[in-house]
């Protein structure tokens, strides 16, 4: 401010020098007493302690929406996933294909064949195998409008250096109104922190629309 003050109501003002850092906020530490609240660190949330606002880590057990991504093309990747949580929940919503494809699969950290799992879907029960996440049955599928596919995936201890347990389930209504259910459980074999997620059509001919939401769980 040219005057060095932030006007409040035409008669009072707060010195602009009170704010020293990007992200600073002003609050009342007592009646008629402006005070500075410095920006918190990444992942912290605004809370109240002893009657005044402060930044704090997310409470244990809380679930936080980390990102929302609009799916596009034959493959969509979400990168830069925060490592500040314990578990990841990935919700893949309202996926619609532009045409017929073999199936929709998913990977983590752009790594193929990274899960050892058991898979049950409409086609068959598949015993332990190493492959990708199979979000739909491995058969000709057409989830054209208005039929939509949805899937939820949970990965435990996703930043650990050990294999990580996962569970995923979903469904879609096919063009013939048949409901396909899909259930896959097992272990992610990647031994580094999970930082990215990819969804793709196996044949790469049909484009997808829909939404990926990623939640962190403390």
């Amino acid at each position, binding site marked *: 401010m040219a005057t060095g003050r932030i006007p409040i109501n035409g008669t009072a003002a707060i010195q602009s020098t009170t704010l020293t850092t990007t992200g600073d906020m002003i609050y009342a530490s007592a009646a008629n007493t402006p005070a500075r609240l410095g920006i918190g660190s990444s992942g912290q949330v605004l809370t109240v302690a002893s009657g005044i606002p402060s930044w704090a880590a997310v409470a244990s057990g809380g679930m936080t929406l980390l990102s929302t991504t609009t799916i596009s*093309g034959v493959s969509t990747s979400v*990168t*830069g*996933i925060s490592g500040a949580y314990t578990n990841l929940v990935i919700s893949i919503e309202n996926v619609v294909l532009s045409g017929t494809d073999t199936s929709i699969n998913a990977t983590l950290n752009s790594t193929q064949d990274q899960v050892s799992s058991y898979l049950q879907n409409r086609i068959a029960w598949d015993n332990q195998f190493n492959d990708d996440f199979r979000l739909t049955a491995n*058969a000709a599928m057409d989830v054209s409008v208005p039929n939509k596919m949805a899937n939820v995936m949970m990965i435990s201890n996703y930043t650990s250096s050990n294999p990580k347990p996962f569970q995923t389930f979903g469904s879609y209504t096919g063009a013939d109104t048949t409901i396909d259910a899909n259930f896959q459980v097992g272990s992610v074999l990647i031994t580094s922190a999970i930082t990215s997620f990819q969804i793709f059509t196996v044949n790469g001919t049909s484009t997808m629309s829909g939404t990926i939401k990623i939640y962190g769980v403390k």
Partner: protein
Amino acid sequence: MPLIRIHNVDTGEIIDREMNAQELAQLEADKAKAAIKAQELAEAEAKRLSALAKLVALGLTTDDLTALGL
């Protein structure tokens, strides 16, 4: 050329581009693997149906097969 999207949720950057050569090669590998898997599943389903037909020929009814979880 297939289009892909990359969303960096740390920076907010969204890139839409065509697949590169490595990604195209991976796509072809995925398609080949999926075709093999689909063939395996089709063969397993054919064997299952064949086995069911043999049971029916032995006199089992549809209700019998359902009771057996088949």
